[in-house]
């Protein structure tokens, strides 16, 4: 399901299946994008932040067009105890790899992988930048 912001329109409530994972996409070239995500976060139930929320930063290939600092996004992700993925959608290889990662995470969030729960994402939060 794709939405441009939260909360989701209520007229479709009855058509919506259970939500297993929420991915917030932030376009690194748009400050508006970050702001939109920040306001939408307020509408997410606290239970989701136990591993069922993920931030996806797109457009990282465009080094000259960055409007948001990655630091700001990482701080946001830390505040909400959720992982951040960086990708460039314009590159097919990275796009496919990112999709596979998200799919894997989704399988875990939906409980399809026995023995692994979404809670383990929280403990895997340390990224290679932290030393």
């Amino acid at each position, binding site marked *: *399901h*794709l*939405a*441009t*912001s939260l909360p*989701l*329109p209520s*007229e*479709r409530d009855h058509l919506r299946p259970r939500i297993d994972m929420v991915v917030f996409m932030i376009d690194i070239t*748009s400050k*508006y*994008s970050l702001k*939109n995500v920040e306001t939408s976060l307020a509408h997410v139930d606290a239970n989701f932040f136990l591993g069922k929320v993920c931030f996806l930063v797109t457009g990282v290939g465009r080094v000259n067009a960055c409007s948001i600092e990655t630091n700001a996004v990482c701080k946001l992700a830390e505040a909400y105890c959720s992982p951040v993925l960086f990708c460039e959608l314009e590159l097919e290889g990275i796009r496919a790899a990112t999709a596979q990662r998200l799919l894997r995470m989704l399988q875990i969030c939906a409980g399809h992988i026995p023995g692994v729960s979404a809670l383990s994402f929280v403990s895997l939060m340390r990224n290679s930048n932290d030393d």
Partner: protein
Amino acid sequence: MDETVAEYIRRTVLKMPRDEIKMMLQKWGFLSEAQLQTLNFHQQKDNISQEVVQLCEENSAGIKQAAALDIIYNHIYQNKRMWSVYQMKKSGEEEEYFDIADFKKKFKGRIRSALKNVTITFKEYEDNAIWIRVAWGTPHKKPNQYKPSYVVYHSQTPYVFISASVLKSNLPLLCQALIVASNYRDIREMELRSHSLNSLKDIVFKRYSQNFQTYSPKPVQGWNVEPENADRRIVHENRSAKERIHRLNQESFGCGPQPKLEFAQYRLDTMFKSDPKMDVLDKKEPFRCLVKFSSPHLLESLKSLTPLGMADAPLSPLLTCITHKARNYFKIREKKESFVSP
């Protein structure tokens, strides 16, 4: 042949991209087909231009012919120049039959009566456009061929497109000559400028697709917001919001391609409104600032703002009024109405 003419022709040829030189010379028609055959268009441009000058020497080219070549180049590369739009007003008499010979005579006459040292060249094109090239001199100096003014006039319309040379002092004389020659009473500059001459024409001749109130609003094929995304596994939660944005966008911009403008400039002379606690400006004076939007294709980018989620719909009327008000330079003052034109 005059040395200055030779140099001018040489430089004009040098401006042309190498694979277009032959075509432009053919359009020019001054050199015979036989002469053109003798030219080697595969060598360096420097050499090509020298050979062209040589041939022009044989044919005794004068400034008239050189100016004609310059018009041809500038007609093809019209988008390199910045064009302003002027509107003429009739004296209220009935339409007179437009006589091109009369127009040329009056135009030349009016300019020459004020300034002897000018080069005036005319060329008519199939779309009823009359191109006029004027190279300006002074009472003591010969015309500067490298800084001419260009005028494009469609005789069936009251609009004139001018790409003035840097010497702005000649503009009043040029305008006067235009109204005298075309039997109009007055001429004024519109607040509309762009590099794309065709887009300016589209705007003032109203050739772009405008949005008219439809008699019965019915879903148009354009309402399927993402036709290529027929993947049924993707559910768009905000479909109704997207459709609303799309509809508002259509109302503001119409469905066709937008005229090509590079700038929109807003000169604000309004009171600064801020949180009283911030107390930014002690004096209650209007805050003057200039807001300029620039883009390779401004109107298309404005049109994409709301569908891309970068701005809220509907867009400010200050942005959407550009085409139907035929202006991209605005002065905004503090008044009862939200917007005042100068």
